[in-house]
């Protein structure tokens, strides 16, 4: 058995807990980089990661979907602009935007967030960081909405530290939408401390009206395993604050019995 998390292919976790019943798709586009990290985070969160391929419209019956970080199609046109038209996105857009029943929970991380804004599942857009450089650092965020499918296990206004790494991370949105986002409590994550990129109102992540679609620029999937995450008070790279995102969705999908 290979110890490497496979990129594509059959990825069945042992059915040892009821949580493993939560099957969470992780999409790979050409140029996606953090797909294996997202799959690992799902596994550590107790769920079963299911690889999804950009060129197929089938979601293979997954209960939720993660669009991971990277540079899909090189982001040469505009971040996420091409990936948004992939066959898999057609299905995701339909199922996440479903009016009836419970819509598909979708999480977009970094490039995934950019794809979600391009797909109009989330409002706003990302432009180059105000300092015009790629920046990688441990970032403190405040969780301001714990009602979404992906944040239910955080406490309101909890401060978390997760890595952030991007070049096009400055969130921009028109004033009317910005006011609506703030009024409706749809800002899910906000940067704490000096702004890392000049985002409007220090917004790091937002959700849609129904709370099933969440996008954020920082990378919770890089803060799920002690020893390989951001630094925290207990030691070097021990931060695992990001794991709560994955346990939240697994818990909500399996009836809250986490």
């Amino acid at each position, binding site marked *: 058995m290979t110890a490497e998390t496979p990129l594509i292919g059959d990825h069945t976790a042992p059915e040892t807990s009821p949580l493993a019943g939560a099957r969470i798709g992780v999409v790979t586009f050409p140029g996606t980089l953090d797909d294996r990290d997202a799959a690992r985070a799902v596994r550590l969160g107790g769920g079963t990661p299911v690889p999804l391929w950009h060129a197929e419209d089938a979601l293979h019956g997954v209960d939720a979907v993660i669009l991971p970080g990277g540079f899909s199609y090189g982001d040469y046109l505009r971040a996420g602009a091409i990936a948004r038209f992939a066959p898999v996105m057609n299905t995701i857009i339909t199922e996440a935007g479903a009016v009836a029943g419970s819509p598909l929970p979708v999480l977009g991380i970094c490039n995934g967030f950019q794809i979600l804004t391009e797909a109009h599942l989330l409002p706003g857009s990302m432009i180059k960081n105000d300092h015009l450089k*790629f920046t990688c650092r441990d970032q403190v965020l405040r969780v301001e909405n714990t009602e979404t499918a992906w944040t239910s296990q955080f406490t309101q206004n909890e401060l978390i530290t997760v890595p952030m790494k991007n070049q096009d991370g400055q969130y921009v949105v028109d004033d009317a939408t910005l006011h609506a986002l703030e009024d409706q409590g749809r800002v899910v994550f906000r940067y704490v401390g000096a702004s890392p*990129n000049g985002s409007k109102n220090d917004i790091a992540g937002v959700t849609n009206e129904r709370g099933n679609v969440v996008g954020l620029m920082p990378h919770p999937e890089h803060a799920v395993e002690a020893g390989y995450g951001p630094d925290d008070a207990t030691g070097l790279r021990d931060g695992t604050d990001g794991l709560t995102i994955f346990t939240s969705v697994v818990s909500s999908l399996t009836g809250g019995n986490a």
Partner: protein
Amino acid sequence: MSDFNIDTVENAGNTPDTELPWAELGLKADEYERILDILGRRPTAAELAMYSVMWSEHCSYKSSKVHLRQFGDKVTEEMKKDLMVGIGENAGVTDLGDGWAVTFKIESHNHPSYVEPYQGAATGIGGIVRDIISMGARPVAVMDPLRFGDIDHPDTQRVLPGVVAGIGGYGNSLGLPNIGGEVVFDSVYQQNPLVNALAVGVMKHEDLRLANASGVGNKVVLFGARTGGDGIGGASVLASESFDDTKPSKRPAVQVGDPFAEKVLIECCLELFHNNLVEGIQDLGAAGISCATSELASNGEGGMHVELTDVLLRDPTLTPGEILMSESQERMMAVVTPENAEAFEAVMSTWGVEFSWLGEVTDTGRLIIEWDGETIVDVDPRTVAHDGPVYERPYHRPTWQDTLQADTFRSSEAGQGLPATAEDLGEAVLELMSSPNMADKSWVTDQFDRFVGGNTALSQPDDSGVIRVDEETGLGVGLATDCNDRYAYLDPYTGAQLALAEAYRNVATAGAVPLAVSDCLNFGSPEDPEVMWQFAEAVRGLADACMELGIPVTGGNVSLYNQTAGRAIHPTPVVGVLGKFDDVSRRTPSGFQRWADGQAIYLLGTTRDELDGSEFARQRGHLGGMPPALDLNAEKVLGEILINASRDGMIDAAHDLSEGGLAAALAEMSLRFGVGSRTSVHELCERDGLDPFTALFSESQGRVLVSLPRSEELRFTDMTTARGFPALRLGVVDAESGGIEVAGPFSDGSFGIGLDELKEAWSSVIPSKFGRVEA
């Protein structure tokens, strides 16, 4: 089909007197004569193009070969134990155990990065990563040892931001964590920056691939990006010549990178390997198709037949010679059996990678390249790939070397009026840490992704980069690259050994068992006998030291002609050492931990009066004397102590003493997590017979600072005593103090530096020169 005349082999036979531009392509008269001898006729334009790039310094190692042999000769059976593939292939491969193997290599992209910093640095990453893929491995991390001119020089202002952005722009887009490297400023690198790149990859034993074209009738395929006009003559004209104002701009010789194409190529190749679809594979780097066809053919059955008009082009006006020489990036050549052709095409289609079948493997012993059915190349591939010229370049010890070595720091003007009081020493530490070379480099490293992959256990600024290989067992590797060019300038033989010793020590300090070496030998012009002496001495030193430490050189790169307007860089043999962890969770970080209040701080090793070539001397503008003494046996014992201490969980932090000596190490260990310390150099001065200044700023080798819980002190000192290695308790970690306090035999008590003040001084230097990242 073309609007240019094709110079066929037949035509070459009929027109023996046609003048060819061999000199413009970088060939020497005697080299051209040799080509005439080999072929028995004049070469065609395409053949000339191939020979000129393959016989260039960059590709043929013609000046360095006679010296590099020592890396193969000075090797014991014991050193070969874990070596699966040695020097000569795209990269060396070392056994890691549990069925895993690791491959790593360091290369230079100096000249292109000077001409076009962003693309030069970006394609440096691209090239080294393709070397790793060619071995069958998944690339898992990169590192970048970088050297620039004086921080205030306009050239540095132009080059550094572009190089850093290029490394980030390319490496970040590949999903490879950047886990370390170096940033050094020195005026000797003005107009000749060094941009070295290291990549490491891992594979299961069965996935190992080699570059050879075996199996008559097997098909040859070129895949990846299309071939364009970029990088033509990169290896011959750009990398193998010195810069000179009188020559035209060399920008067209720099390749342009497309990291997205490379990322797709990585995944596509791994799927090919996984499904066992290729017999041999070779990346296209320097010398492009010339290199790939001639090397694949000569390493295999000896023959290959290729139709060059089948190459997919970005620019349809390229001539056959240009196609053969183009160094367009993100291309690979593979040998595939006819049975696997369909499956191969399916993988290409999955990843949307373009490919074209160019020809097949033959047993004729000839590399035949046709253009629209007419033969334009008919050569023995060995003569192109392996039988290039070999030079015994004359070399001699520079006449100024003795004068340089006699000019010691202590005897110089710079060595007078040294700080002696606590107050002055405190000031000196602050000044040291805010000098460009000691300052915080996070402005650079924060532009690189260190998290992607989720396996990074240590990265900059820790002593080594550490990557987990196997998620189930924690098996992993540690890597460090080092070189102190000032030491190498003072004494190239010892300097190269000191570079190896430091990289070895850094890997062991993190807790890894050193296994293998890769080197990037950056020097001036080999046509200068004094530079050639520096090179010869450095290689001899490195080979001798590898033998003594028992770790083999598995590959690397030589970069010559690093000189501008007749002024050579310091000899800069950058050495990368790779080590193994059974479990990377045991790695030792380089700073005092936040929860480690009250832990004991020990200094391992002996301090001598060794200030020549030091950082302190640099600050006073002095470079002369002899580098610090080297004791490889002591380094080995120290390494064992650190590895055992990590394995048995005795120590919680360890940091090696190098540039800036004890003063810098104490400061860096506190700056890492913002945790202060209280120490005294009283006993150190007494034991080693030193004044406090020397104790703090000497750069004696084989020294490491560690912190450990008091409950482990006895066990730890028992271990050092049993091994006869000096260990001295200097003080304690003090998490509450918010500063560094150092007592000693000073007339005015002790000195303290607040961590806030130190951090501000240390971290503001580089942003103040290149702009703050944050708003």
